């Protein structure tokens, strides 16, 4: 018996010894590595954006259309702005160097600095996305919890059917239906378009924020809610929830302490993904409601073939995705003991 127990202590010592010794250093190293990967991704994103906008077609020909042959002076002016006489590599380096120093280039359409042009709309869009997220997250989690509570019974099936129907709808469909319902055809409660003075902000008129926000919320919440419900149910079926019940732990404590904690991590992942989704969704929603954000500006810039503006805005949207993902990764690791201890040991 005695030699058995000594044999058993071996693996234990192994776990204990390596733990915590290099905790801080290991975390720093992990963070550094993860940041490095994010920077690498951003760099590749910039290459992709530049190649797609600058080499796939001839933006100058696209901008001028029929004027291309009749207006050589304008062609030359645009070529200078884009640096068309230089090689692709040096143009990229110029542009990327500018990005790093905060110089986003000059708009082809308005010949104003891009940074000045977009700063206002970046704020507007950030407010819209943040507001939508703020409404969406509690709503989606709440609906998921109600649904999981009634699993496979009537309320659950009804909720799931509705969510499934909404989940497939494109954002402009949701937006138009909301406008028809709440702004024009049926009820006339909220304004259908955002009108703000050039100096003011769209939220100066809070009523006008309702429909764009609601559209974005309805667009992503069903998906989030369905995923959270699924991971909740998976946890509820787990052995440790069964043991907690067999131990005699009251049901509400089982849910709160044993189930929710473990179901929240997949929730974080999907919320992060959907925040990035929102960043794309603003393109269509802002156009629909004429909301003065980066989406509206991006569509205008694409229509005008205004290459520098498109480049700057796509870098911002892709950057949001990379950062949100990084934060979500960090949060899930912090909330998953297994992953957490794996790093520090």
């Amino acid at each position, binding site marked *: 018996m005695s030699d058995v127990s000594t044999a058993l202590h071996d693996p234990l010592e192994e776990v204990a010894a390596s733990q915590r010794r290099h905790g801080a250093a290991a975390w720093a190293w992990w963070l550094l590595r993860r940041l490095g990967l994010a920077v690498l991704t951003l760099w590749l994103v910039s290459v*992709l954006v530049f190649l797609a906008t600058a080499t796939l*077609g001839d933006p100058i020909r696209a901008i001028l259309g029929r004027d291309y042959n009749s207006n050589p002076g304008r062609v030359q002016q645009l070529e200078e702005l884009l640096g068309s006489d230089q090689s692709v590599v040096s143009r990229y380096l110029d542009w990327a160097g500018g990005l790093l120093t905060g110089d986003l280039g000059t708009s082809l359409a308005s010949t104003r600095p891009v940074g000045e042009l977009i700063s206002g709309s970046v704020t507007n869009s950030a407010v819209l996305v943040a507001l939508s997220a703020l409404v969406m997250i509690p709503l989606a989690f709440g609906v998921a919890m109600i649904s999981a509570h009634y699993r496979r019974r009537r309320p659950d099936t009804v909720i799931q059917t509705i969510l499934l*129907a909404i989940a497939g709808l*494109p954002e*402009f*469909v949701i937006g138009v239906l909301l406008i028809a319902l709440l702004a024009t055809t049926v009820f006339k409660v909220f304004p259908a378009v955002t009108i703000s003075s050039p100096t003011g902000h769209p939220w100066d008129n809070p009523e006008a924020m309702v429909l764009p926000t609601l559209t974005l919320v309805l667009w992503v919440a069903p998906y989030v809610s369905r995923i959270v419900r699924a991971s909740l149910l998976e946890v509820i079926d787990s052995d440790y929830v069964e043991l907690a019940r067999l131990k005699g732990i009251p049901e509400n404590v089982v849910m709160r302490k044993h189930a929710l904690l473990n179901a929240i991590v997949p929730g974080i992942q999907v919320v992060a993904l959907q925040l990035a989704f929102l960043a794309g969704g603003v393109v269509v929603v802002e156009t629909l409601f004429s909301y003065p954000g980066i989406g509206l500006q991006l569509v205008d*810039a694409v229509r005008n073939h205004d*290459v520098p503006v*498109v480049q700057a805005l796509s870098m911002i949207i892709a950057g949001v995705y990379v950062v949100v993902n990084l934060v979500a990764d960090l949060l899930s690791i912090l909330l998953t003991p297994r992953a957490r201890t794996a790093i520090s040991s």
Partner: protein
Amino acid sequence: MSTDAPAPAEPSTFRKALRQKRFSVGLAITLLLVAFVIVAPYVAPFGENEVAGPPFSKDGTLGTDYLGQDVLSRVMYGGREILVIALFGTLLGMVLGIAIGIVAAYAGGWWDEVIMRLNDVVLSFPQILLALVVLTAIEQPSALILIVLVGVSHAPRVARLARGVALGLVSRDFVIAAEALGEKRSRVILAEVLPNMNAPLLAEGGLRLTYSIGLVGSLGFLGFSTNPGAANWGQMIQENRLALATQPWAVLAPVIIIAIFAIGTNLMADGIAQVAQRGEN
């Protein structure tokens, strides 16, 4: 369970899906809509660009649009572009994505790392943004360009799923058994790995088709379509939306038909997903 009584023969994914109400309903909706898109132009009361009355009037079943064209006829003509581009774009995205995902999972190690890292780069663009960035430099997109854009924007998302599913399979003993017998790598992928992925991949395909419809519709709505004069559901919304209060059908008709289409494909996808999930347990 080792103790089950002799089970009935394993039916195909499609048969199992058919038993699901949501799948059969979704399939019926989708097939009806496809039939409508194909047949409707031949029975439309007016031509695609034929003026039927004054702009935004109540003439005809659903009234007229901003140029006085018949809305019903425009809806009947307007599904072709969405259908073709969404379908082929989805197909392209699936094929690309599955190939990338399986190769990454099967090759493993360093290759896997590099492939998935590059995949992440494309993933960091919301799908519509990827399309817009490319369209910046192009004067008038052709159908082929739109198909490629839709396909390429799907591919990394499909690849991520395909890799996840394949990773669960390549470490299974039956794949290792085939390796030990010395089967060719291509045969291992095609005969051992791929057939076991069809349920989750079909579900993903249905979901991707749903998103394709939204994506192509959105591009049309933003004014990017192959032919500005042709009828196109997405574009119709854009053209007529200022008259939503006075002539709502000019906007609502295309919106509703896109909604039905998307709901149909999404129901179908979810039906298959349920089957796929059950297969795992």
